[in-house]
């Protein structure tokens, strides 16, 4: 049983990253109509910013949780202002190609300077060690990642579904022209939305740094699975992407316990099944 719980925990942790990343992708897709392939590279940048802050500036993990998403978010907003905004109204394919190109460039630059091996980032002192829950040993940092991710996801859901700002966002997703004609600066809102989605990715990167180390290709490996998660959950649903993210992490964990050989493919098998049965995804609206 110990091994099962351990795999469930790994699943929940991966699920946290899936949820944070697919949430950002869903928000960006809703507002910009862009499938943001640069998401993995920006997640990686979040981890690297945390690494630089610690090693060059002596700035600890807790500050990095705030500063890294802001820095990467600003970088994202510059990308949006200088490049992505010109794609409005064009086919999805252009956004996909542009963001994929950006991802390759960003990852290439980091690989050039840091190679492909991982740089260590240690767990903050306050979160070291673990607790014995009776049925399993829980490393505190891992528990923290799951709970903190869940809180951030739910806060983002609340922001979008329950606040006036979120109402602007949802309305602008449906009919940006009309929302702008009500006096709302929609282009600025689009830029901030991209910043928010990218900031969530960077936050996931910081959370992941002490667990998975800091590597230039950490995002490239993860993002493929995250896109499968997004396809399963359906683009454009906030709660859907959160639930699907966590659920698929857990399903992956369970597969690792019951049938390890399939653990790397189970998400993709599910994706194929969902695409065959319900092409818009489990919770998605028609695009």
């Amino acid at each position, binding site marked *: 049983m110990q091994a099962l719980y351990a795999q469930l925990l790994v699943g929940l942790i991966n699920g946290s990253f899936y949820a944070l990343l697919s949430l950002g992708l869903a928000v960006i897709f809703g507002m910009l109509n862009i499938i943001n392939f640069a998401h993995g590279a920006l997640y990686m940048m979040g981890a690297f910013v945390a690494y630089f802050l610690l090693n060059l500036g002596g700035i600890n993990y807790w500050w990095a949780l705030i500063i890294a998403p802001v820095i990467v978010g600003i970088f994202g907003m510059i990308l949006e202002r200088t490049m992505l905004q010109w794609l409005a109204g064009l086919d999805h394919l252009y956004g996909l190609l542009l963001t994929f190109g950006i991802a390759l460039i960003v990852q290439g630059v980091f690989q050039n300077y840091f190679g492909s091996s991982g740089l260590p980032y240690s767990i903050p002192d306050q979160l070291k060690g673990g607790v014995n829950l009776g049925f399993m040993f829980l490393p505190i940092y891992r528990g923290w990642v799951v709970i903190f991710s869940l809180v951030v996801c739910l806060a983002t859901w609340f922001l979008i579904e329950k606040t006036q700002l979120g109402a602007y966002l949802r309305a602008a997703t449906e*009919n940006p*022209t009309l929302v*702008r004609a*009500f*006096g709302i*600066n*929609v282009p600025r809102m689009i830029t901030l939305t991209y910043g928010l989605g990218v900031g969530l990715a960077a936050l996931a990167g910081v959370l992941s740094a002490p667990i998975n180390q800091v590597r230039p290709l950490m995002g490239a490996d993860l993002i493929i699975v995250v896109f499968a998660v997004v396809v399963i959950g359906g683009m454009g649903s906030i709660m859907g992407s959160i639930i699907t993210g966590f659920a698929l992490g857990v399903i992956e964990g369970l597969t690792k316990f019951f049938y390890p050989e399939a653990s790397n493919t189970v998400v993709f098998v599910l994706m194929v099944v969902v695409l065959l049965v319900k092409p818009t995804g489990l919770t998605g609206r028609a695009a």
Partner: protein
Amino acid sequence: MLTIQDLQAWYGESHILHGINFNVRAGEVVTLLGRNGAGKTTTLKSIMGVINKRTGSIRFDNKEIIRATSDKIARLGIAFCPEERGIFSSLDVRENLMLPPVVRPGGLPLDQIFTLFPNLKERLTSQGTKLSGGEQQMLAIARILRTGARFLMLDEPTEGLAPVIIQQIGHTIARLKSQGFTILLVEQNFRFASTVADRYYIVEHGKVIDGFANSELSANMDKLHTYLGV
């Protein structure tokens, strides 16, 4: 309040407005009449700044707005109720109603809006697009009354609605006028327009070709029939 001179507008490559000239004075209800495709809706959208390619002059409260973006134009106190109503399906009725930001003081308070449209009060938690056509039209008008905009543009507010609801919208427009709102109306329903309008302009092939006051209506009936083909 609003003066338009030689307004030309394009949708992509197609030239829709070929030099529109007219004006609206404060407190008036002015109606644009014309056949389908004459350019009435495009005129409203050009004033609102929703159509990007436009030339000429649109002066509102003595400010030139021909180059302004639509969010800036809205902030000057112009509000637009589109023909397709534009109720958001991902927002409930309350969120739809509260969506347009208040751009200046002097908007109608919520209790007055509910006096005008009692149906809305009962449906506040319904999904916006679950309302009937008439209720959606009321919601589309109600939400721009909150914002403090004193110049309202209504694009075919009676289209596809039952006579009893058309009557209610007529009463609403009369009431808004008595409260000092200025209204620019686009209507196909000439009989409805004649119950609320102070003046008319006839739009044809992207130009204003005629205009007269409501008092001159009977003298102009023959011409009007020719223009509208009714």
